[in-house]
C-alpha cells in the first residue's frame, strides 16, 4: 500500500507541476520553482516568530504568503522591463538573504531551516494520513496536491485560450481585449500555490525538477501547447513510477530517483525526437550531403 501512495503522490506532483511548467518553459521562467524554494525562508521565520511553534501548518501558511509575494514581485519587475531570468534572480536572492538575516538575528538558538521545518519527504507520505473521525482518508499530501492540481486544471481549462494567447503573443492578446496582466498574475499565483503545497509534502528537488524537466522534454516532442501539456503529464507520471522502482532497486532517495528518471527521458527525447532530435538532425544532414555528393554537377 505504501508503494501505491508514494507513486500516486509522485504522479500528482508531476501532473500539477507538468501543467503549469509548460507555461513557465514557454515564458522562459522555468527556474521560478527553484526561486520559490529559496525565497520562502523569511516566510517561515516570520510564521515562527508570530506563532512561536514549528508546526507545519504555520510554516505552510508563512511559506505560501511569501511564495505569492515572490511571484508577484517577479512579475511586477519583469513587466517593468527587466528580463525574466534577471527578475527571478533579483527577487529570490533578496528574499532569501532577508531570511538569513532574520534567522541570524531572531532564531539563532533553535533549528529553523527550510529542510528541517518546511520540506517534506516523499518516503513518509503513507504515514501522514488525514483522519476524519475514525475514518482513514489516505495521505494528507494526496489531498493537498490533488486539490492544487484540480485548481490548476479547472482554471487553465476554463481560461485555456486566454492563457495560451497571453503566453505566446501578449501584444495580440491585449489587442483583442484580454486582460494580460491579470492572467500573468493568475498563472504566477497558480505556480506559487502548486509549488508551496508540493514542497510541504515532497520536498524541493522533486517539485523543481518536475516543473522543468517533463515540460522541457514535451517541448522537444511537439509544437502544440495542448499536446505539450499532455506529454508533460505522461512523462512526469512515467518518471515517478519508474523512478520509484529505480529507488527500490538502488535503495536510494525516492525523489532523487524520480527526477533522475525524468532527466533520462529528457536525454532520450533530445537524441531521438523526430523534430528536434540531435541524432536525427545529424542523420538528415549526412543524407543531404550524400545526396549532394552523389548528384552530378548541373
Amino acid at each position, binding site marked *: 500500500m505504501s508503494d501505491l501512495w508514494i507513486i500516486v503522490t509522485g504522479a500528482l506532483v508531476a501532473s500539477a507541476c507538468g501543467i503549469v511548467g509548460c507555461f513557465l518553459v514557454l515564458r522562459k521562467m522555468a527556474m521560478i520553482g527553484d526561486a520559490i524554494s529559496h525565497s520562502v525562508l523569511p516566510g517561515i521565520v516570520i510564521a515562527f516568530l508570530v506563532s*512561536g511553534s514549528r508546526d507545519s501548518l504555520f510554516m505552510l501558511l508563512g511559506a505560501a504568503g511569501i511564495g505569492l509575494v515572490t511571484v508577484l514581485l517577479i512579475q511586477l519587475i519583469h513587466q517593468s522591463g527587466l528580463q525574466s531570468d534577471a527578475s527571478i534572480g533579483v527577487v529570490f536572492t533578496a528574499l532569501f538573504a532577508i531570511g538569513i538575516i532574520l534567522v541570524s538575528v531572531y532564531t539563532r538558538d533553535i533549528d529553523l*531551516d527550510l529542510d528541517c521545518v518546511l520540506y517534506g519527504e516523499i518516503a513518509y507520505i503513507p504515514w501522514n494520513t488525514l483522519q476524519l473521525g475514525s475514518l482513514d482518508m489516505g495521505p494528507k499530501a494526496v489531498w493537498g496536491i490533488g486539490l492544487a492540481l484540480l485548481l490548476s486544471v479547472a482554471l487553465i481549462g476554463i481560461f485555456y485560450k486566454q492563457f495560451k494567447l497571453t503566453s505566446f503573443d501578449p501584444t495580440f492578446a491585449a489587442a483583442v481585449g484580454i486582460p494580460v496582466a491579470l492572467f500573468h498574475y493568475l498563472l504566477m499565483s497558480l505556480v506559487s500555490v502548486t509549488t508551496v503545497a508540493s514542497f510541504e509534502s515532497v520536498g524541493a528537488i522533486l517539485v523543481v525538477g518536475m516543473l522543468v524537466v517533463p515540460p522541457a522534454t514535451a517541448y522537444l516532442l511537439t509544437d502544440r501547447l495542448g499536446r505539450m501539456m499532455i506529454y508533460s503529464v505522461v512523462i512526469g507520471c512515467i518518471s515517478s513510477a519508474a523512478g520509484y522502482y529505480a529507488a527500490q532497486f538502488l*535503495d536510494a532517495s525516492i525523489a532523487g530517483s524520480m527526477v533522475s528518471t525524468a532527466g533520462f527521458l529528457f536525454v532520450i527525447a533530445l537524441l531521438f525526437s523526430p523534430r528536434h532530435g540531435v541524432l536525427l538532425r545529424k542523420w538528415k544532414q549526412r543524407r543531404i550531403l550524400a545526396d549532394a555528393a552523389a548528384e552530378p554537377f548541373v
Partner: protein
Amino acid sequence: MQIGNLLGYLVTLNPKEMKNKMNKSTSPRQKRSAGPKLIALALLISLTALVSGCGKDSASSSPDTRKLKITATTGMIADLAKEIGGPHVQVTGLMSAGVDPHLYKASQGDIRKLDQADIILYNGLHLEGKMVEIFENMAKKKTTVAVSDPIDRSLLRSGALMNTEYDPHIWFDVSLWMKAAGTVRDTLIQKDQTHAEDYKKNADRYLSELNALHKEISEKISTIPESSRVLVTAHDAFGYFGDAYHLKVMGLQGISTASEAGTKDVTDLRDFLVENKIKAVFIESSVPRKAIDAVIQGAREKGHEIKIGGELFSDAMGKEGSPEGTYIGMVRHNVETMVSALK
C-alpha cells in the same frame, strides 16, 4: 506478451479510435490520438510495476521466528534498544554512522524499515525535523515513542527567545539518557510481556553501567584545571554535557548545523580563546571544520597557538563494531579526547 495484449485492449478502449475504426480504418485523424495512447501506456507501466512490487512484498513477510522488530532513528537510540532488548529484539537504525540527523535524507529502504517495525523509537524535540510530525501521526496506529518524551521539561535546555522549543541533544547528559533508557524499557515491556523479566534485568544492568559512566565523566572532567574547562566546538551540541559536567561550552554555529557562523562569532571566539589561553578546540564527526580552522588561524595571528584537540562524536556515533560505535564507547572517547587536550 500479456502486456502487449493488454495494451492493445486499452488502446481499442479509446472512443475516438473506435469511431475511427468503425468509419474508415485509414483515416488521417488517427494520428491525433497519440496523447491518450501514451496515457494508457504510462498507466500500464505503473500498474505492472505496482503488481510486481506487491508480489515481492507478500513473499518476504513470511512469519519467521518472532523477534520484536524495532526501528530507531539515531544510532544512540538503536544502541539503547539493543542493550535492553538483548536477544529478543531485532534493531534497525535509520541513520547510519557519521550521518548528521539534521541533514539526513530518507532512502526507499527506510519505508520497509518503518512499515515492518513493531516499535519505532525516535529522539523527538525536533531532532528529526519534520519527521517528528510523521511519527506523532504514526503513534495512532503503531507503538511509536519519543525517548525524550517522559523527561520533565524543566530539565531541558530551552532557547533564550522561545521557551517552548528545546535543545534535542539530550544524550550528552548521561543522567538524562538514563531516563531515555527507562522509556525504552517500559515500551518493550508493554509490547512484549512474555520477556518482561529479561528486559528489566538488561535495563538494570545497563542503567548501572550508565550510572558508573556518569560518575566517571565527572571525575575525569574535574582533573582539568578549572580555568581551562572550556569546550569549543563547531555547533552547540554539547549544551547538556556542559551543564551536567560543569564545562563552559562555546559553539560557533547555532543549534542547527545548517546555519552559518557569522564573522563576529569568529572574532569574538578568537578573542576569548586568546584572553583565556585555551589550549585546544574540537572538531566534530558530522560537522565540517572550516569555521574552527578560521578561529585557529585568527588566534595564531594574535600570537596564541591553539591546537585541534581531536574529533568529537556529536550527532552520530562511530562505525559499527568499533569501540566508538556504542553509546558508552562514544561518550568515553569524547571525554578522553577533551581531558587529554585541555589538561
